[in-house]
């Protein structure tokens, strides 16, 4: 097993607004690591800074100060092609609103990252079939996103994120737009991916149930990481209760 953390965040701050305007500090010095194969949850109410943090981690936004390293590589200074390639190879995203291209079928959406590397057609097909089987969407590969249910869309998005075998999978409220059954299915799938294939996952959510799938949960409030909970050997039910209690006290 690697010793270096897959995600390493050091003293990251983010301030919105220009110096001479009204400023708002969304992150006030966040530091944490995610180890390879770990399933980490980040929880917080809306406005706590969790989406800002995820945007910075996934290179969609830049921190005002501090550093972020993924797989040992500092990402804060990347630009242009290097940034694009980094996104393509090292990180996978699942967004709350899926971000599927509605002019491509599910198969084409999933194959897109592979096509970008000019992988052979057959290899693309095989890779898509493999990941689709894992996520249980083999039957809907030729449908367009509008012809899929929310749960299926999110699985397609997950398949697209995973088809490149990234170092880490980022999820931004991936169950936010799903019904409870689809949400549970998706979380089960993510958990098994994490367990069986060792995919590191970082999940940002405000939903305690989603968070209870993580091995470790960091609570973020007003731009800082407060409490941290570890799943350990507790059952999921016990962990869920613990989260609820923590939320109760933490939010006050």
């Amino acid at each position, binding site marked *: 097993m690697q010793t270096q953390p897959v995600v390493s965040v050091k003293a990251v701050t983010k301030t919105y607004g220009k110096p001479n305007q009204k400023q708002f500090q969304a992150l006030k010095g966040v530091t944490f690591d995610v180890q390879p194969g770990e399933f980490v949850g980040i929880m917080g109410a809306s406005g706590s800074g969790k989406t800002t943090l995820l945007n910075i981690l996934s290179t969609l*936004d830049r921190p005002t100060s501090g550093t972020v390293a993924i797989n040992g590589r500092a990402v804060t200074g990347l630009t242009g092609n290097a940034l694009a390639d980094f996104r393509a190879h090292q990180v996978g995203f699942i967004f709350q609103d899926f971000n599927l291209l509605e*002019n491509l079928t599910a198969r084409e959406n999933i194959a897109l990252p592979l096509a*970008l590397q000019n992988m052979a057609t057959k290899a693309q097909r095989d890779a898509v079939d493999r990941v689709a089987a894992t996520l249980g969407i083999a039957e809907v590969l030729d449908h367009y996103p*509008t012809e899929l249910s929310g749960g299926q869309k999110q699985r397609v998005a997950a398949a697209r994120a995973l088809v490149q075998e990234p170092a880490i999978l980022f999820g931004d409220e991936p169950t936010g737009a799903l019904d409870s059954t689809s949400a549970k299915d998706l979380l089960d799938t993510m958990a098994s991916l994490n367990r069986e294939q060792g995919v590191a996952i970082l999940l940002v959510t405000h939903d305690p149930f989603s968070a209870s799938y993580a091995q470790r949960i960091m609570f973020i409030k007003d731009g800082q990481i407060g409490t941290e909970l570890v799943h350990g050997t507790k059952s999921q039910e016990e962990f869920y209760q613990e989260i609820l209690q923590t939320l109760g006290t933490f939010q006050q």
Partner: protein
Amino acid sequence: MLRKLALGGIRSRFRDYAVLFSGLVIASAVFYMFLALATNTAFLKSNSFIALTSFVFYFGEVLLVIITVVYIVYANTFLMSMRQRDYAMFMMLGAKGRKIAQLIFIETVSVGLLATVVGTGVGIGLTTAAGNLLINMLHAPATHFNPVWGPAVLWTFVFFLGMFVLAAFVNAGKLLKTPVLQLLHADTTPNRLQQKRSVLVLQAIGAIVLLAIGYWAMTQLGTLQLMGIGLALVTIVMGTYLLFNASLVALIAWLKRRRFAARGLHNFTLSQLSFRIRDYTRILAVVAMLFALALGAITVGLGFQAEIPALVNQQAVYDVVTVAPNAATRRQVAKLTGVTATQHYQEKTDRHYVYLDASALARHPVQLMDYQNGKTVRVKVTAANWEKYADMAAQQLSTFRVPADADRQFKLVPAARFAQLAGPMRTVTTYQVADFGANYAPIKAIVAAQAKQHDIKSATQSGQKFYSYELVNGMFSGLAFMGFFLGIAFLAMLASTLMFKILSGASYDAKRYLMLQKIGVRPRLLRASVRQEIGALFLFPGLLGVVHVLFGLKMFTGLLRHPYGNLLVPFSIFIVLYVVYYLLTVWLYESIVIHRDVTA
């Protein structure tokens, strides 16, 4: 409150409305420009010796109406796509159908009315500018040409307002029938390429048959007369549409199955094209027709313009001739540009003769136009063949004489004899220039100065080429004027249509490009995808447009001596303009859909 809601919609999506609005402004401006000529019968009659012209304009009007209707329908769909979510939301909040219908009516008609008012203004401006520019360039009298033409204003308003009132009713009817939920999610429905192969094959065959009939009709105008133009119009418009529909659907489907699609962003680009293939084929057909009209009009315009020097050059060899030039004449002579040949001849006169020095002619023979075997040729005349051409010389060399010499004959004498002659001596100078049109002003001034100096009272007395030029120019420049004028108008419409099509989808496309950037597509690849997608939009109609023009020029075989004589100039000018416009569009579109730095 209602007005506030309707106008608030405009404020919140200013850029989209700006695209919509400018598109409609250009459409109505071009419509006005065309009508300013088409409804001005006095202008058409006095500027065209071809009886068919007003009918050609009549059919042009029909074609323009078809194109404008497609354009307005498209613009209207765009307007509704911007607003239907808002309307659906109002309905969810409990707005009654009547209220919504009223809102749609206010909005659609006010956008239309405003666009027509501004468009007519722009049309008048463009008509004035293009008209004056062309009149100066072509030295065309363009009698009765009037940039501010009442009937054109009237008909532009009637047509556009009628269309928008109609559109408002259709919009309201359609909107109130569609379920609210569907309205809320209307912008993301894909267009499955699910057409049956047999339908595509039928469409392709239909397209080819229709185009063949249309092309054939254009060659048979002699027998079919007006019917031919009408037939060509209908079949070519339909054929163009069907051809794009069948061939693009098939081409995209075929490419998607190839290895080509699995590389890079190709699949995305193809899907972008197929996503709204119905809109695309309709717009591509319109663009192809406009391309053909603009290119055709300019080519024919240039053809008529090229007729002018060709015809004038059959009338006389020398572009301008001076006799004993005074200071005023010499000043104008100095202004001639591109002089290819100048010859000086000495003349002496007595009571009966104008004497020319034979040795001077031996060195530099005078040139005359002779009509041999149905062709005009230039002959060089010296002492050797003087007798043969004496009559012709007397006629054609009237520029070598002045009215005072009316009773004197030309006589060629040897150098020694010429030297002994007593009478006064004067110099006749002949000038030939590369481009008569470019030297129009100085030549006109020289002719005037000579007329004043020698008391020349008529064109016959003068015999200068200038008068032939004026005559021929009067005949053809009106037609050339119409060609160029309509060429400019159609080109503006073409540009506006393409720009409108591309920019109206940009805000939806921007989302897709942002997603691609988020999942790690290199900016270079995105730009390549944009170039290819827009390139397809430019390329296919361009190709078909060129084919249309090549067949369409057949119609002018009777009017132009060489309709296919000089295609290189108009085609290359047009293609250069088209490529520049393509690059501009790509640049504009990229600046909208591709974020320089994804930080959000």
